[in-house]
């Protein structure tokens, strides 16, 4: 375990150094990621400027949903890679080489593509979080800071789980399953607004099938110190971020199952 952590940090430092070689490109991409994530937020501001509120939520409250999910997702996206090329590794048989190395295949995959230029999304998320805290006069007690941190980590674990799940399915299909990207990126989009605005079937899907609400909507109620219009209990809200870690654990089990049944395509 410690050994893996060391190896991971080594990969990370190599990746930072190599991306810094193309400085202009790095900075442009960073600005680009900041702006393109920011666009969505500009959209939220523009709409709430016209409508004044979204159901019972005002702009800073909606902004908190935006901030938390974007921080969670960018943490996962930047530091764990996106497994984008994985189906290709399977198709070409390249993946077999990963299996021969004396380290876990997952660790090697995670460190394949660290896209630190997505830092823009993270920075924007923190900026919005800060602004929200100041505007709503949230009291950041140590307990609340800890809870917010756990929520973010739970969210990052949730997204990592989704990405691993998508990769695992490729063991059988040898194709990239874009459908699951819809759940990943669509999930980020969905969690940018309070769950109450969606239709019941949609809410249920993102609570019970894909437990996204557990790492966004429910813990954010705790952070905002608001009661739930949907009527969930306080205990459930406090416990909800743990669903992210549980989801990751389940996805890891599925990954191990898939790995055991992996047959090289042989090409």
């Amino acid at each position, binding site marked *: 375990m410690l050994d893996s952590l060391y190896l991971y940090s080594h990969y990370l430092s190599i990746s930072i150094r190599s991306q810094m070689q193309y400085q202009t490109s790095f900075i442009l991409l960073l600005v680009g990621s900041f702006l393109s994530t920011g666009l969505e937020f500009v959209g939220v501001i523009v709409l709430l400027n016209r409508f004044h509120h979204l159901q019972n939520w005002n702009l800073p409250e909606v902004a908190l949903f935006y901030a938390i999910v974007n921080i969670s997702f960018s943490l996962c996206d930047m530091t764990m890679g996106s497994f984008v090329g994985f189906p290709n590794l399977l198709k070409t048989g390249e993946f077999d080489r990963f299996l021969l190395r004396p380290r876990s295949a997952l660790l090697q995959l995670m460190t394949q593509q660290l896209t630190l230029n997505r830092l823009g999304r993270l920075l924007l998320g923190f900026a919005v979080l800060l602004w929200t805290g100041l505007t709503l006069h949230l009291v950041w007690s140590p307990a609340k800071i800890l809870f917010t941190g756990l929520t973010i980590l739970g969210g990052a674990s949730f997204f990592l789980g989704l990405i691993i799940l998508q990769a695992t399915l490729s063991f059988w299909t040898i194709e990239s399953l874009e459908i699951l*990207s819809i759940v990943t990126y669509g999930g980020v989009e969905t969690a940018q607004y309070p769950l109450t605005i969606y239709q019941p079937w949609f809410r249920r899907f993102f609570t019970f099938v894909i437990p996204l609400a557990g790492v966004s909507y429910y813990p954010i109620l705790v952070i905002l110190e608001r009661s739930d219009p949907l009527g969930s209990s306080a205990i459930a809200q406090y416990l909800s971020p743990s669903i992210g870690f549980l989801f990751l654990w389940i996805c890891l089990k599925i990954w191990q199952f898939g790995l055991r049944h992996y047959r090289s395509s042989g090409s």
Partner: protein
Amino acid sequence: MSPYIAIVSARIRTLLQYRIAALAGMLTQLFWGLIRTMLFTALYSSSSVTQPLTYGQAVDYIWLGQAMFAVTMLTIDQDFQEMVRTGTVAYELLRPIDLYGLWYCRAISKRISLIVLRSLPIFLIALLLLDLHPPSSLAACGAWAIATLGALVLTSAISTLGSITLLWTIAGNGINQLLNVAVLIFSGIIVPLPFFPDWLQPLLNFLPFRDLLDAPLRFYIGQMPPESILILAAHQLAWILGLIILGRLMLAAGLRRLVIQGG
């Protein structure tokens, strides 16, 4: 003219092969449209402030926007980027054909194939199964069709310009990403333009980006009278000519200092 027609038709036939990828893209757009319409339902149902669009118009705007999303969005031509990176772009220079015309043909072929593979299915699904209404009148429909044609020509000019900037930076994504940010926000994809603050409207009306999506849609939903198609067409034409001239100048400048990488 005939070599261009041959290029466009060959290219379209190639691009139409990618149907599975188109299916995934289509589902993404439908999902996005679903989230957006639910968002607007919530916004309209909880607010009594008078809005620039009615709820029905806003929903139509969203679905038409999702249908045209792939066509409007500026994507780097992957094949072209690869050509610049590997140096095979040199072959392009050898072809006995005007280079700008050739690249423009590539761009417009891509967009025509996207209309067939993405826009039409999403439009039909939204119209037949979801809550998209038919055009407000026959005249509105005609104006919408003409404006969309103008948008197609204009978006290809912007995209060709984006490709030409790749001659300067090999990585190249940076500038195109920034250009894309402008397209996304000022065309009305992220938020329908009528919702933007009133003081910003003159700027939005001046920029070419609204001609890509917002202006055609406003004819469809009946927010702009069909007669004003003439004004819009003039606006589109002015930008098309301007961007083509700019593109040609940049291409000429780029070729003067072109160093072929690789070999």
